[in-house]
């Protein structure tokens, strides 16, 4: 008993020390404001409405910015043309700009140019396909990225902030420049794990991909069908490593910036890569270790609008044909006869059950209501007898 009490006390003390230490790590200093931008930009209400009604917020929280991934960059490193006050005719920030951060391995000015180039060639990018219609629908860097804060790395070992401090202390044994080491450490560990929870990823992707109108004009299916899968159930319950969009569409070994449509042979969701995606992602993530080709090549999302369109009444198809609908063209290219057959069978089973449940339960309710009425009546008449 006594021993366990001491043990508990020790655990409590340990947790207290760790959380204190973690808090200490999290609060690093605000960025030095060498350009003196904060003289105005630290006021929360600095802002205005655009002529088109967009709200512009020009407020910067210096502490948050100092702790962010861009905390070392100067304002003008990205906002390159802000060289007079008042700032007029401001260009949008281009992430491919070379800022004054030195890339430590090469000592050259750093830029996101590589990434931007890769991204432009991906399915979401502008440059890959000149014919792309509705370029305004395509997400740009800031659609998915914000200026995230660094957090101390909390690993698999008990999610402890103390671990971060311990590791950092080891780094600092050699790298005595404290601020620099902290910065590099924070940057390094920040890249060691995914930054968003599963439901955040899903909200981010579905903010476009669930938009029926947007998807239809690109000939894509809206992905609310994901929510009919068991994958979504796991996400719903916040299960660690639950499969979200990224897990299958950008598995280990792929990058989001180079994402390709599933018809592309390099895509992890292409049929020839499916077994690997489901069973073993580079030896790291094993979701369905025994997955066979039959299992993996089947449909993951529930059947959506394409199959529905192909199996619709002839009038609907004729209408789509007349409109030259991208959806119909792509549906005919992509949906196999086998899938249509599967969809029909599943719909049939669903229909059978809908009819069955309705009639069986309806009969039962009616039967029991009659029974109820008869028994009440009988009890009443018997009651008068007594």
């Amino acid at each position, binding site marked *: 008993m006594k021993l366990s009490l001491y043990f508990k006390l020790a655990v409590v003390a340990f947790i207290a020390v760790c959380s204190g230490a973690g808090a200490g790590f999290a609060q690093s200093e605000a960025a030095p404001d060498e350009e003196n931008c904060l003289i105005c930009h630290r006021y929360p209400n600095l802002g205005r409405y655009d002529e088109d009604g967009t709200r512009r917020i020009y407020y910067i929280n210096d502490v948050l910015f100092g702790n962010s991934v861009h905390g070392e960059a100067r304002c003008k490193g990205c906002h390159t043309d802000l060289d007079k006050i008042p700032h007029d005719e401001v260009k949008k920030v281009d992430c491919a700009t070379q800022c004054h951060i030195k890339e430590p391995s090469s000592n050259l000015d750093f830029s996101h140019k590589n990434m931007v180039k890769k991204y432009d060639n991906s399915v979401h990018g502008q440059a890959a396909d000149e014919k792309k219609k509705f370029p305004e629908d395509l997400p740009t860097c800031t659609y998915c990225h914000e200026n995230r804060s660094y957090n101390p790395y909390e690993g698999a070992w008990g999610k402890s902030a103390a671990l971060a401090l311990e590791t950092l202390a080891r780094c600092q044994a050699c790298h005595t420049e404290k601020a620099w080491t902290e910065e590099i450490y924070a940057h390094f560990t920040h890249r060691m794990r995914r930054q968003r929870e599963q439901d955040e990823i899903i909200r981010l992707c579905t903010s476009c991909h669930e938009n029926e109108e947007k998807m239809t004009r690109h000939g894509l299916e809206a992905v609310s069908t994901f929510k009919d899968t068991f994958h979504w159930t*796991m996400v719903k319950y916040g*299960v660690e490593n639950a499969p979200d969009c990224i897990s299958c569409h950008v598995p280990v070994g792929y990058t989001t910036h180079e994402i390709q449509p599933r018809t592309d042979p390099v895509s992890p969701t292409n049929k020839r890569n499916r077994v690997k995606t489901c069973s073993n992602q580079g030896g790291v993530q094993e979701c369905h270790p025994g997955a066979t080709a039959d*299992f993996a*090549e089947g449909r993951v999302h529930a059947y959506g609008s394409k199959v529905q369109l192909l199996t619709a009444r002839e009038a609907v198809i004729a209408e789509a044909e007349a409109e030259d609908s991208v959806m119909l063209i792509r549906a005919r290219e992509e949906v196999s006869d086998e899938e249509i057959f599967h969809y029909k069978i599943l719909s049939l089973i669903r229909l059978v059950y809908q009819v069955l449940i309705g009639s069986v*339960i309806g009969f039962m*309710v009616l039967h*029991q209501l*009659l029974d*109820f009425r008869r028994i009440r009546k009988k009890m009443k008449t018997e009651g008068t007898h007594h």
Partner: protein
Amino acid sequence: MSHNEITMEQGKMSKEKEQGDTPLYFVRLNFNERVQHMIFVVSFIVLAATGFMVWIPETTLDFLGGAKETVFTVRGVLHRMAGTAMIIVSAYHFYYLIFKRAGRRWLFDMMPRPKDIKEFIHNMLYYIEVKEHPPEFDRFSYKHKMEYLALIVGTGLMSASGLILWAESFWDKFIIDIAALIHGMEAVLACLAVMVWHMYEVHLRPHKFPGDNMWLTGIIDEAEMKEEYPLHYKRIMSDPKLRKIYLTKGPKQDE
């Protein structure tokens, strides 16, 4: 307690009873059947609760907070455990039907007969007050037989589809889709049927509300026997063999 012991004991009791004019009690479910039923009930409730948790909308889950993941893990384990229990008890039930005397009697009494259709029509007429008296039911009426059939079919479908889903990697995805669909739809049908048909029949009918304890004690008194299963009552009273089997002492001595 084995079946033979029960009948012997009950035989003794009925002999004693015939001498005095103490009230008569009848066995509806013997101990073995009550245990089967109890395991089935518990596993059914666990399966329904943990199963339909999958369909709870995400916004409703917020109240669980950080415990969501644990709840999910426990949910999965419990569902599989309860499913296994249900399959085992169902398999045992088949064994019971074939290899035990009481089971064979159960199966024989449960067999559908043309009489059931007549009784159903008669009962409907009784409900709408064309006939003044309900039909004379034997041990199992058409209600029990329909329910028993549905139970066998439903448990079979649920077990098969559940096992397919459990070993998902071995199957064609199409098979899994079908299994998942049937598993869900059949679950809805089963739960609704159990609530409307079975729960009402045994617990919620006005003269039984809010609950009957026959599923725990297994016996009913003479008045109820006469009222609900008059034909069976007559058969028992006229056949000394059946009297040995079905007549028992009062509920307190049953333990």
